[in-house]
């Protein structure tokens, strides 16, 4: 007979081994995916960071979205157009009929009006300024509404008509907290449960309106695994079927695994190096010095060697973005010319300056990338007094405000995402337009006043006609490139996903901003 004490030990051992082996067991109708980061909110009116959109985008939808090829497509909007009424712009939207929320309620214009009211409320939303130019929300009928603007607002169009479908009746029934705990939208996935920092469980919405593009697996379990190596390990052991953000150094290893498929896409972020022109005696006020910086670093080599090729070189705007201009070519790496330009600018022996390097890994290998760039500059005579900054400290020196200390001249590794597929309007308002206290222009800008450029940026923000706007943006891009203003553009990071090719059918769809909302994913059919 087994002693009771040993019996307990035996039972524990059985429990250990049983759970260990059952950990990787999954039902046929579910898939487990692992993401590196986690949303802080499930309420689309409260999102604050890009990562929130990965999660919200599975359950909630907007009027317009990019398709798998990056082209804009009407989504919950059956059609929309920009009109002019009494000299003021109006966006006229007809809603797609037959769309329902996950509780079966039909989608109507009142739901968008409700979303608009929440988005413009600074007590709720982080983006009330995006609704600042909307004078009135007019409901024409259940499936038709108009947005009346006080002035042209190009970013409203560029940012996918802003509004998310939020179920007014359900929200008012359950209240704000309960809505955030148990959200419902019109998206392909409906909420089942969530455990913060562990997982989000979603079920396929059976009555989803889009019969052409939808998931085919019953359940999606989203695991949160922040550590890169652990995420890859979980994929290798079969605990998860799909992983996000394969670290650049491990892509080759993952690709070599049996029955594994990968896809790389641009992440939606745009990286550049800004030069502080604000001090009166800043060397970067001289065009030759800015051009020397542009000629002085081999960005292609940095992408290849430091980022393992996981970066897409871009010049002002990337391929697929609004106003992409293939004729704009990057400054070639030419250290001799860079040194000559420095000499022409009056710095034959170079100069010493502060180099601010963001080290928080908001993008892979960003610290090392900055170090390599600054090392190139040292080789042409721009000697770096290196300052490594965590994100919070980086914001402190980078953000322009009258009541905070600023960076003291120098060069700063910088990023401002144009999104996916991308539009530079908002970013250029923030880091190309010079800083105007109290008005929101140039909130992270280090350009010294350039009135012509400021006027161009201000003007382009009011142009709602897509063709006219694209032409204006292209003109800014050319000038910006020529004058090396608002920073030297470098690359857009690539994000690589991996999945089990023998089990998972997956089409990467971009959501406004990013790629991870699982519009089309399912089990592979034999």
């Amino acid at each position, binding site marked *: 007979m087994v002693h009771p004490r040993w019996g307990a030990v035996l039972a*524990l051992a059985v*429990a*250990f*081994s049983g*759970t*260990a082996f*059952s*950990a*990787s067991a999954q039902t046929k109708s579910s898939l487990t995916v692992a993401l590196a980061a986690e949303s*802080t*909110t499930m*309420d689309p009116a*409260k999102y*604050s960071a890009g990562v929130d959109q990965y999660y919200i985008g599975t359950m909630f939808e907007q009027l317009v979205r990019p398709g798998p090829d990056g082209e804009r497509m009407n989504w919950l909007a059956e059609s929309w157009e920009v009109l002019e009424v009494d000299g003021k712009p109006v966006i006229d939207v007809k809603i797609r009929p037959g769309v329902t929320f996950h509780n079966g309620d039909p989608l109507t214009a009142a739901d968008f009006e409700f979303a608009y009211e929440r988005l413009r409320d*600074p*007590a709720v939303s*982080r*983006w*009330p*300024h995006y609704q600042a130019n909307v004078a009135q929300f007019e409901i024409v009928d259940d499936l038709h509404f108009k947005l009346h603007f006080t002035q042209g607002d190009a970013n409203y169009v560029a940012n996918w008509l802003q509004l998310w479908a939020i179920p007014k009746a359900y929200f008012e029934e359950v209240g704000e*907290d309960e809505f*955030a705990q148990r959200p419902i939208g019109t998206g392909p996935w409906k909420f089942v449960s969530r*455990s*913060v*920092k*562990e997982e989000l469980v979603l079920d396929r919405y059976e009555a989803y309106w889009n019969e052409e593009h939808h998931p085919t697996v019953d359940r999606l379990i989203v*695991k*949160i*695994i*922040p*550590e890169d*190596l*652990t*995420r890859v*390990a*979980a994929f*290798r*052991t079969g*605990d998860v079927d799909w992983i996000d953000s394969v670290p650049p150094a491990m892509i080759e290893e993952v690709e070599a695994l049996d029955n594994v498929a990968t896809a790389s896409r641009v992440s939606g972020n745009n990286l550049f190096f800004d030069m502080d022109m604000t001090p009166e005696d800043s060397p970067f006020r001289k065009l030759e010095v800015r051009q020397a910086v542009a000629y002085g670093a081999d960005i292609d080599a940095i992408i290849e060697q430091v980022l393992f090729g996981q970066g897409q070189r871009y010049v002002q705007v990337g391929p697929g973005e609004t106003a992409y201009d293939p004729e704009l070519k990057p400054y070639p790496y030419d250290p001799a010319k860079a040194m000559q330009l420095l000499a022409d600018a009056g710095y034959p022996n170079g100069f010493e300056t502060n180099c601010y390097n963001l080290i*928080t890994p908001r993008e892979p290998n960003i610290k090392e990338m900055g170090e390599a760039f600054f090392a190139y500059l040292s080789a042409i005579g721009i000697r770096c007094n290196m300052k490594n900054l*965590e*994100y*919070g*400290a980086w*914001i*402190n020196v980078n*953000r322009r405000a009258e009541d*905070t200390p600023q960076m003291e001249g120098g060069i700063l590794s910088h990023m*401002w995402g144009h999104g996916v597929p991308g539009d530079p309007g*908002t970013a250029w*308002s*923030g880091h190309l337009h010079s800083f105007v*206290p*109290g*008005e*929101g222009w140039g*909130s*992270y800008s280090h350009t010294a006043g350039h009135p012509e450029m400021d006027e161009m940026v201000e003007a382009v923000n009011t142009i709602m006609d897509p063709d006219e706007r694209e032409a204006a943006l292209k003109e800014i891009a050319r000038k910006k490139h020529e004058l090396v203003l608002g920073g030297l553009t470098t690359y857009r990071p690539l994000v690589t996903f991996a999945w089990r090719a023998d089990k998972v059918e997956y089409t990467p769809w971009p959501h406004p901003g990013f790629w991870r909302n699982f519009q089309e994913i399912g089990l592979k059919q034999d």
Partner: protein
Amino acid sequence: MLGYFARRLLQGFMSIVGASIVIFTITRLTGDPVVLMLPPEAPPDVIDALRIKLGLDLPLWRQYLIFAGDALQGDFGRSYRWEMPALDLVLDRLPATILLSAVALAFSMAVAIPFGVLSAVNRGGWVDRFGKVFAMAGQAMPNFWVGLLLILIFAIHLDWLPAYGAGTPAHVVMPAIALGWYPVAAQTRIVRSAMLDVLDSDYIRMGRSVGTPEFSLVWKYALRNAAIPLITMLGVYFAAMLGGSFVVEVVFAWPGLGRTVVEALFARDFPVVQAGVLFAAAMFVVANLLVDLSYGIVDPRIRHGR
């Protein structure tokens, strides 16, 4: 004994009040959370509105008094990031960290005590030498590296244990080993040194002379006295594990408090940092109180006030 306990309780409370002032002040030195919460293009009026909503426009002393008053009523404010009560977030994560730390501590003791005792009994022998090397190796390997090594061996190659997450006993094995590995070395040394002292004492020699079996002498009589220095340190080790579990929690995607608080610190989510640190401080105080009380159990002289 009761007076001693009350005095220690009061000291503990004062420590927590002190910790609250320090953490409240230090978090605010990190900068303005509002600029991290809003998009970079947010205009000044939107920034100001959020600052007022969060009460960050008030003088620091008023912010502290409001925080302290609310905290005494169990309200630590709402997380800036997660839009939920900070206390809920902390209490939701705390059990996972306590479990991890407790299992890690149990693991480290389960290794350190036999090693320490055997090293002392076989002083200079191969067990002693192996123990020294083992202890040195433990201190030389950072816990994130141990964690990754364990994942490589037991999750990827052997497929015995899950690589990440929580929820079953199997999930806690590797994180606990990774977290408990480091203190094994120090604990082994403490046990070994204490055992050497005790084994040289008169009552052990007396025990031997009257024919008490060596096994009982070592494992029953000597170890009981030698355990006191280790027990003294247990509270410190436990607190160190509570505070130092962040790296292990990240490596194993363990949903614990350490990861939550460190992420909150980087995001300047003051309410979560304050609630998390104060709970960790409270755990530290409680752990040390329990250690003090446990002396009495181990050593009757303390129990009877001799």
